[in-house]
């Protein structure tokens, strides 16, 4: 009897242990999923995905007004954010600052040095002057004092191309009525 009781008590730990292991496993898996959901999508970077996003933005800009482009851009930012799609962090600075990680030291540049001038361009207020400032800021931000324009990144080139067209009015469609 005593022996049986001992054997029984010897095996009784298996159930709780298995449950504990399962709970730990679930916790690890849950934490992993949570961490993945928290990590900014901008870190999942591929040059191909970035090039595709830039191409889409450029195509979009060719057939829409500055305001319509901004609305579409904001919608795309939300889509990228929710779908965790791969987008190059470097394109984010110029086109999707919403996707920059909270700790990114580039946020200041995006929000304080680009955003006000972009708003001016969209509203058509001193658009050419605003674009000139934007162009200077992007160029010195990327190249410093001595770099050549040919060294600008693809995203900076696309950015300047798109907003340069808006600033000079080349994108106005008859539907804009201006």
């Amino acid at each position, binding site marked *: 009897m005593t022996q049986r009781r001992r054997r029984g008590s010897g095996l009784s730990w298996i159930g709780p242990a298995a449950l504990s292991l399962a709970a730990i496993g679930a916790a690890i898996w849950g934490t992993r999923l949570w961490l993945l959901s928290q990590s900014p999508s901008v870190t999942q970077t591929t040059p191909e995905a970035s090039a595709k996003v830039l191409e889409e933005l450029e195509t979009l800009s060719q057939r829409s007004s500055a305001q319509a482009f901004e609305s579409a851009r904001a919608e795309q930012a939300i889509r990228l954010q929710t779908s965790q799609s791969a987008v190059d962090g470097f394109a984010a600075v110029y086109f999707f600052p919403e996707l920059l990680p909270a*700790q*990114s*030291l*580039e946020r*200041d540049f995006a929000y304080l040095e680009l955003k006000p001038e972009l708003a001016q361009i969209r509203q058509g207020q001193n658009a050419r002057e605003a674009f000139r400032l934007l162009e*200077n800021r992007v160029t010195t*931000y990327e190249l*410093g004092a*001595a770099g*050549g324009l040919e060294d600008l990144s693809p995203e900076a080139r696309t950015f300047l191309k798109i907003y340069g067209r808006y600033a000079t009015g080349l994108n106005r469609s008859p539907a804009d009525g201006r």
Partner: protein
Amino acid sequence: MSAAEARLGVPRALLWCILFQESRMDAFKNAFGDVAAKGMGQFTPNALAEINQDTNHYDSRTLAVMTEVTQPKGLPIDFGLKSRPRVERPGYRKKQLPDQQPTSYFNGRTAVFASAAFLNNRYQQIKRALDRQGVSYDREVLWLYAAAAYNKGSRTVLVLLTDYYLSRGERALSRLLTDGSQSVALLTHEKLLHAALKDLWRKRRRDNYLEEMTRNMQAISSCVNPEIRS
């Protein structure tokens, strides 16, 4: 340079070392020819445009300083030359050129102040980003990062520091930014820079840029403080 330090707070030793590294203090470097970067601080037209058009954007003292330096005309400054040699080729009769107008970047005093203002703008840009994140730093150490940004753009520095911040945390970043030797070691370590900046440029350009950046930072940091070597 002492005057630039007094007016804009730029450390004169660092400014001297940058200008020496950029041009060996040659006010007429690349004055004749198609090379975009010209003069003592190797300014491109975009760097000039920042001083001329975005003058007070980073520091509200800059306009007053630059207006005084370029008197009697005042801003803008340009790449104008008072007299040009009959045959223009690199290095030709450079030494016989007269002193230039204060509004020319080829005027030595103007070049020193404009370069100091540009360097200060990089410092203010990096400082502001760190202040907003609440990251502590040592001012002297931060000037080293401003020197790197002068040469390769603030983006390079901010991407590098963001990578450090995201991968190692705020404390580690603060430690880095208060330790001159550690900062020099990072700014001159090609492998670490490659890893942090791998997406910033395509491979070939990155190789050239980082090789140039590490060489410049090695020269500048050992020029400023010969005891700080990587």
